């Protein structure tokens, strides 16, 4: 039996759609609640980001609890930047006990890109070690070798960077993540389908599900900013030109169009098993993208 609705979905042959919500730097979660309500029935699962870009915010686990309360399917993003192995394990126990059973293991952005640059970076584990640790917990023992009263069981994923400029070391890490027990991958933003096709030729030999990361660009300026400031992101020049060519104020519309175009191609060519849509602060446009990509249907 599947551990979660999402795991069940992963094992089907359906085209999988996930998206993510970034919690606020606030105790007012009304906007998150609004976004969860808006998206929960339109996607298969919602990631809640974990201090994305190393900016202190409402926690991922808190957002996942809200998704649960509101009847959605959460994916707990978990980075190794802020917690040592004790804190990571205990949070997994909490998550499981609250019916949060999908976890995304990430190394986490560097402290230097965030808003608490003086903080102590933890990185007691890395993303591969975190995957292994989750599988160890499932076997009924913690990292200290002690028995758990009752063990959890998760559906676990992680990320991969198919468009990295040095792809070979990323592929070695991809192999290690598969061996450590990853079931699904949500990729970094895809901006060049040719290189994504090459990656999939490699990845398709493994029995894991790949969800292509779709970052919604809202203007040429935002794309350039991301190229310069967001770790790992490399937006293709052709897309920047495409965005730069539209009238002022129409950038986001164009971004939705581009995202939808990518999603349609990926789906029609069966390039991978689904998509993970990252609207970076524009969560309310995700339904528009799904519509433009002809993915909203009464069946969802």
């Amino acid at each position, binding site marked *: 039996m599947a551990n979660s609705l999402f795991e069940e979905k992963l094992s089907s042959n359906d085209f999988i759609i996930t998206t993510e919500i970034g919690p606020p730097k606030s105790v007012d979660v009304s906007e998150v609640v609004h976004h969860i309500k808006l998206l929960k029935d339109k996607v298969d699962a919602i990631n809640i980001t974990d201090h994305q870009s190393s900016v202190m915010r409402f926690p991922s686990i808190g957002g996942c609890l809200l998704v649960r309360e509101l009847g959605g399917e959460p994916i707990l993003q978990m980075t190794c930047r802020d917690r040592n192995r004790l804190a990571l394990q205990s949070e997994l126990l909490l998550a499981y006990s609250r019916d949060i059973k999908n976890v995304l293991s990430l190394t986490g952005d560097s402290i230097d890109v965030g808003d608490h640059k003086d903080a102590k*970076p933890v990185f007691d584990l890395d*993303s591969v*070690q975190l995957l*292994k640790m989750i599988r160890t917990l499932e076997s009924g023992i913690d990292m200290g070798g002690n028995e758990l009263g009752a063990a959890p069981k998760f559906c676990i994923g992680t990320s991969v960077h198919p468009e*990295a*400029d*040095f792809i*070979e*070391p990323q592929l070695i890490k991809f192999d290690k993540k598969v061996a450590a027990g990853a079931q699904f991958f949500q990729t970094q933003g895809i901006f060049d389908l040719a290189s994504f096709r090459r990656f999939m030729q490699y990845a398709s030999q493994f029995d894991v599900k790949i969800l292509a990361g779709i970052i919604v660009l809202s203007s040429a300026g935002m794309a350039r900013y991301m190229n310069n400031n967001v770790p790992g992101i490399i937006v293709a020049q052709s897309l920047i030109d495409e965005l730069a060519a539209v009238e002022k104020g129409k950038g986001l519309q164009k971004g939705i169009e581009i995202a939808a175009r990518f999603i349609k191609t990926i789906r029609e060519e069966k390039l991978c098993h689904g998509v993970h849509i990252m609207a970076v602060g524009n969560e309310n446009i995700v339904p528009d993208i799904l519509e433009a990509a002809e993915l909203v249907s009464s069946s969802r």
Partner: protein
Amino acid sequence: MIVAEQKPLEDIIRMIVPYERVLILGCGTCMTVCDAGGEREVSFLHNALQLAQARSGEGAHTFSEHTVKRQCDPEFLEALGEKTADVDVILSLGCGIGVQAIAEYLPDMPVLPGVNTSFMGMTKESGVWDERCAACGECRLEDTGGICPITRCTKGILNGPCAGVKNGKCEANKDMDCAWILIYQRLERLQQLDKMRRYYPPRNFRAIPRPRRIMSKAETVTGESNG
């Protein structure tokens, strides 16, 4: 070697306020090599402090200077002899270990740190020093082509690059090479990429209890203590 940087002059001036007679004490080993606190820097600092005092018209410090071969070794501190007889404070330009060695050696003498001890590293080029070791207690350079991931990767991760690398540079600093790209390239060159494919378990932080102590094998065998 240990690499340090001299503290800003204002900080040093502020630290010495309560004391009249100040001995500026250099170190002839690492601090000399990294230009932070050798004989030359001691004499520069001496002049700078005197000049600052004359300009401001404040303070009535008298300064003396001396450099020992190594501040971190009590044996070399014996050479201080009478040098400390007529002083109220020692302004050490030794690393943090030197400062503490003096504090232990002279229990009644205040010691001030004149440098910020920064890391263990090597001379990259004239006037440039790069960190190379974090003394993790379990050296893994065999597995990483002689490039230290703990020191040179911002996150100190052990199983390959994170996804933040761009143009071979680290996400934390665009001028810094990503350690894991360097490791990959070197292992490839050495035809040892299988080492990168291996899984490395989480680090054992018990290898670095604080503070650490190492006893020479000979002493351990004869059961003597070194402290």
